[in-house]
């Protein structure tokens, strides 16, 4: 099945076969766990376990690599801001401080450093389930799975429309840009002035907006003519079947989630940066 306009990567891994609603649930549970904990043991476990899942998903390395670097970049910026704004937040959380090293008269505390490490690991551990969900869920099943976990179908279908018409907007944007450039309204290398470039970009946006607005009107009519919104529920042509294996996955995912919630409430409560 072609997937022009969506990030879907063709494949046949366990995640490709997994019911999208289950996959979505996994993603949601995973995220909740990540945000519940500030514990290096949990974060490290999730990173390792996540990498294993990523390996199983058979998503090409180059795609993962790009996103990985994006997350790292974001993280570095984040860390810098924390150092500038509240360098002692880790000490506050831990309730004590140990000097790690002296540095040109500044004291660097173990707690502060470890706080940044745990935080970075947290962000990193979000990456695997996100990648898996985005790249192994077929766009046609995306809206359906949203609907299945309770999102109203009118809202869920918006994603379908985005996947459907985004490439077209892209194509239009290209031709409009060219047509304007032919009149000397360019924002490429031809136009040296930055201010003029910005103004020119605006000239390209207007026909594109016209196009989009016209399109939206027509699509709405076309959809309603075919009974969209008539009933409270709708079925899905590309609905993924819910198999026995999916039931097992669901059980495993839910159990693990419960376990982590229990641990968070009863055992591993606060900020912990000691591995063993």
């Amino acid at each position, binding site marked *: *099945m*072609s*997937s*022009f*306009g*969506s990030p879907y990567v063709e494949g046949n891994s366990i995640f490709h076969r997994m019911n999208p609603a289950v996959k979505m649930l996994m993603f949601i549970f995973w995220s909740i766990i990540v945000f519940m904990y500030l514990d290096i043991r949990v974060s490290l476990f999730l990173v390792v376990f996540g990498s294993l899942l990523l390996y199983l998903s058979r998503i090409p390395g180059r795609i993962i690599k790009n996103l990985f670097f994006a997350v790292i970049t974001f993280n570095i910026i984040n860390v810098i801001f924390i150092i500038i704004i509240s360098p002692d937040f880790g000490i506050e959380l831990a309730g004590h401080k140990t000097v790690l090293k002296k540095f040109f008269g500044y004291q660097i505390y173990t707690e502060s450093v470890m706080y940044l490490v745990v935080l970075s690991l947290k962000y990193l551990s979000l990456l695997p389930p996100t990648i898996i969900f985005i790249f192994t869920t077929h*766009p*046609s099943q995306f809206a359906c799975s949203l609907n299945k976990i309770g999102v109203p179908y009118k809202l869920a279908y918006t994603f*379908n*429309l985005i*996947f*459907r018409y985004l*490439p*077209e907007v892209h194509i*239009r944007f290209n*031709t*409009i840009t*060219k*047509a*304007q*450039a*032919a*009149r*000397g*309204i*360019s924002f490429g290398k*031809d136009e040296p002035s930055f201010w*003029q470039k910005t103004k*020119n970009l605006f*000239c390209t946006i*207007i*026909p594109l907006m*016209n*196009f989009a607005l*016209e*399109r939206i009107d*027509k*699509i709405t*009519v*076309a*959809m*309603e*003519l*075919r*009974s*969209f*919104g*008539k*009933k409270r*529920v*709708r*079925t*899905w*042509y*590309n*609905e993924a079947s819910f198999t026995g294996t999916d039931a097992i996955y669901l059980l495993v995912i839910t159990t693990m989630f419960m376990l982590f919630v229990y641990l968070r409430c009863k055992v591993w409560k606060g900020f912990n940066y000691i591995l063993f």
Partner: protein
Amino acid sequence: MNRNVKIKFENFSFRYQTLKHPTLKNINLEIYEGEKVLIAGRSGSGKSTIMHCLNGIIPFFLEGEISGKLTLNMTAPHNRRNIFEASKKVGTILQDQDSQFVGLSVGEDTAFLMENDAVPEKIMKRKVEKSLHIVNMKEFISYSPYELSDGQKQRVSIAGILTSQAEIFVFDEPLGNLDPKAKKDTLKLLDKISKTTGKTIIIVEHQIEEILEFNPDRIIIIEDGKILAADTPSNILISGILGQVGLREPLYIEAVRNAQIDFSKIENAHIVESFATQGIREKFLKNIEHRIRRFDHTGEIILSVKGLSHNFVPEKKVLDNISFDINKGEIVSILGNNGAGKSTLSFLIAGFIPCKEGEIFLSKDNITNTTITQRGTKIGLIMQSPNRMIVKNIVKDEVSLGLKISKLGTRYIEQKTEESLRICGLWEYRNWPISALSYGQKKRVTIASILAHDPKVIILDEPTAGQDFRTYTLFMDFIKTLAKTGIAIILITHNMQLALEYSTRSIVISNGVKIADGPPVKVFSDKDIITTACLRESSLYSLAEALNIDKQVFIEFFLEQIKFGRGVK
């Protein structure tokens, strides 16, 4: 005759909320079960409004005031709570193939209606396959819309309404801007559906010559919101009412009329072969002067394309070794079906895409490697839809925009703007908001803003698509006057009528290869070229064949006649 009335308008009038006067005035019309009806009229005649009343767009989307009565299948759609009741009985195919294809794949789009009706998945899958089989699209079931042609998208939409319980099918300009081959396929499919399902089919269309092939039972002519005539195609053609309301008659009828042959006694005037009588042949022969117009273009060469080839993916050449010259003041039509490579060719000439192989010269300067901005002011490409090009609100500002950016002197800008506005007949409208202009005028605005740069070549992509005959003639006559000023015009089109009437030369492209280059008359009387390029032979050609008269001479004669008839002002 005892036929069931499927649709009944009784003293029906409708006024859009935003308009002062009613768009439909006192319509009385009965359409029977299983009937094939063509509703024809100029743009703005009210023909689309009738369609909107049937499928419920009126009054649920477009509000207004209704008086009189409309019954659909014995029930009044407008008394129902919403649009859906109407849409259950009426399946609609809209004109825009892309907007109505909302699914991410062929199968999904076909199922869209059933999904919304909450049909169980299994039944849905079976019905989708069945419907796609009818429209010959089954093997495309998992294709994305981006891999389909417009014609194929339309077939998928038709498959979609075939899954419904609708008893009435409504088609809004189904031929639209499809290429000749797709038009032929659509007509064939419409015929098949009508024969196998026995559904009532209503087509709104203004391309009479082509739609006649569908052989409608009745043609209903709408003008100014009223029904002027409702009769068999044959009677409608004989009455000459098409011409009176500004629609184009089929070319063969025009030819017979121009030759002042009385055909009021002919039965089945909607079939070209009915005219193949000895009497008519002799009358034609008496009229025809054996004179072939001479096409000499010894003028100065403006644009020269040499050995142009292009490919987007390594394996498949979109264009293969295309060469031609275009002279000053010439109007050249580049013809071919969608996918033949003509858009790529125009993009290469205008510099929208970089040239990989071959060379392009503009009055002896090699411009092969110049950027789009350097080239744009000399070679203007006018896109099909003016809305894709217009940026400003006021006519004058739009036309002067490009000049202002080039930072030319104010006096010069003003002078140039005025000049191009005057040429385009827009000087009185210079301070108007563009949104208040008609479609044809908007198109002129886009041309005026190119003219301001003193272009040498103007490329027009499907300049007359979707326009009725009157707008078509007005616009193309204007293009002719432009050419007289020395600008070379390239028409990118699959409309053979347009090429025949307005171009001085036709270049035919098929599968990326140039297969013909010569006077249109000559190109179009060559059956081999027409079949290879999958173009459509005009009814003029068929008439000449039926009458056994030399085609080239016949078409030539016809062109002389219409030039005379319409008057060269």
